[in-house]
């Protein structure tokens, strides 16, 4: 790829006490692309994402953002750069409406009073930019939304702040077939709008449906970062389960000794 990556991790190490969770992990994310992050349970996907989001400090390695080396110490630092994470459990307030949820903690005010009209306009514009047409009114409570619509709101909330990198943690895990298709379409649209999207998923169909690149973690190491068009379904499954597949993958895969 000729384009410079927007986010690049080089040789990241991360331990929790005596347990080293990430070994020398490199990870690259390009704008306008969907990068799928795959790996078995315990491979370190969540830890890697939390390091990117500033929730866990990294022990070693370099964090580059837009061509510059940065130090991310807190979620606030990550948010300030334009990195937003949509967690699996969504973190929406059921008793608030869509607009209120999208602006929660960052409300627009005029003086002392909430500027509802401006927030509603911005929220409507964001949803329109994502071509979201499934919600009846942006003033309806989140409790009245379906799972897919909730996911849409959570993603729109992440996009609202001119973010550059959006990380989605298993966005389709709890959804039905039609809703999954809707959310994947939205994921694709985010990338087409120029954002860098990181998609964590266990579902190979989803991964191949939307991603441009696939990064496979195996026992805390980056087994491979490949273009989705260069690999097959079964190769990725092999990378996930054994860390290598033919020429791809780690040289030594026998446990954590290497």
């Amino acid at each position, binding site marked *: 790829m000729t384009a410079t990556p927007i986010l690049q991790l080089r040789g990241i190490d991360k331990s929790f006490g005596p347990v080293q969770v990430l070994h020398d992990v490199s990870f690259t994310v390009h704008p306008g692309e969907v990068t799928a992050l795959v790996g078995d349970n315990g491979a370190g996907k969540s830890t890697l994402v939390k390091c990117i989001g500033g929730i866990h400090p990294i022990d070693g390695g370099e964090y580059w953002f837009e061509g510059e080396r940065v130090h991310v110490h807190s979620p606030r630092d990550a948010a300030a750069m334009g990195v937003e994470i949509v967690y699996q459990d969504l973190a929406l307030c*059921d008793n608030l409406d869509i607009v*209120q949820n999208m602006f929660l*903690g960052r409300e627009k005010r005029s003086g002392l009073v909430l500027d509802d*009209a401006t927030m509603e306009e911005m929220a409507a514009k964001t949803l329109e930019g994502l071509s979201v047409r499934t919600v009846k*009114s942006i003033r309806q*409570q989140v409790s009245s939304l379906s799972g897919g619509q909730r996911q849409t709101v959570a993603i729109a909330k992440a996009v609202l702040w001119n973010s550059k990198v959006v990380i989605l943690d298993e966005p389709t895990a709890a959804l039905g077939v039609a809703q999954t298709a809707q959310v994947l379409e939205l994921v694709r649209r985010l990338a087409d709008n120029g954002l860098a999207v990181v998609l964590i998923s266990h579902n190979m169909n989803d991964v191949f449906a939307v991603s441009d690149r696939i990064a496979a973690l195996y026992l805390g190491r980056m087994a491979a970062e490949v273009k989705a068009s260069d690999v097959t379904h079964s190769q990725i499954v092999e990378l996930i389960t054994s860390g290598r597949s033919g020429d791809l993958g780690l040289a030594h895969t026998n446990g954590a000794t290497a």
Partner: protein
Amino acid sequence: MSAAVVPEKPDQPEKPEKPRGSGPAKSGTAGAASLRSAARTYVERVRGGELGALPAVLGLIVLCAFFAALRPVFLSELNFANLLTQGAGSIAIAMGLVFVLLLGEIDLSAGYASGVCAAVLAILLTDHGWPWYGAVAAAIVTGTVIGLVLGLLVAKVGIPSFVVTLAAFLGFQGIVLMLLKEGTNISIRDQTILAVANDNLSPALGWVLLAVSVAAYAAIQLRQDRNRRRRGLSTAPLSLLAVRIGAMAVLGSFAVHLLNQERSRNIIVDSLKGVPIVVPVIGVLLVAGTFVLQRTSFGLHIYAVGGNAEAARRAGINVAAIRISAFVICSSLAAVGGIIAASRGNSVDPNTGGSNVLLLAVGAAVIGGTSLFGGRGRVVDAVLGGMVVAVIQNGMGLMGYSSGVKYAVTGSVLLVAAGVDALSRRRAVQR
């Protein structure tokens, strides 16, 4: 949050009909059609479990009709005024409780906190000769400090609010006794304090106040409507706005007219007419509380913490600070309730804020539609629920029932209200 993951219903396709934002009244034709669609939206919301003030309003109408049919004196001007002054103290406490209940917490000590504040007021006024404003300020500051301590114990130490305030309930009962020297009663002679619950506005002032309130409400609503219309956002139909403002004017005029009638039994001794002073006092608290909850980000954060504390934390909201401030508001409003009670009783004794005061206040908030599970409720709920409670107490008193029966009935109504709350919540979650 298991409730956050709603199982899909494949047979219910999402309706693609309307792009968001464009409400039914975007065209600006404020006619019967838009009024009807507004009504339809409301019915949908109620069926979805968002009952709002509906049960309290219906209950109020049914109870009033019931008592009026059996005891015509219930509808007399004198009794109407009594009803308002009887309810005012616990309504003020209930307004504070709404803030705490919104977080899904409880304050069992609000009743005796109001007693402590009333005792402080009485001692400073009567024993130390303070001016009324100094004593009132001291009483409210006492409430604020109480709230701060309770809030810190709940939010920082992490003791469940039920336990903290149950301990405070006992503790404050003791403090009231100690302040009042083991049960003597301190009478209040300050004319200003006595006027709060016992005097009335002049009839003319009552009308002026009503006119100003209606005009201000109409101006705010219309300005908001014009602003939204100009930006092309969805608005409620103008006809609905007109109905609301009209209803406020008509009901208000009816009440003011009724209260401006002479209701003294012996006009030669004393003339008794006009709107009781507690009414505008409660009105100011209602407007201020509603403004804080509905129009400021602080209010929004209270709802957010009550709805999903983890989401609020991730959104960067200081959850502990929100919790503490809710307890501060609750105890400060309890102080106001204590001042009203002291004024109404002309004195403070160890029972001020005791016995059933707290339970009536919690009952008022819940009957009005504030959820015990947090996240749902408004300040006006306290007023509506407080009126329901006052009507029950007053009406059953007129029917000659003993206080035993009154307690039992009020308790049952509270149980019904909490049941409605639980069921409507389940309905909202199940969809």
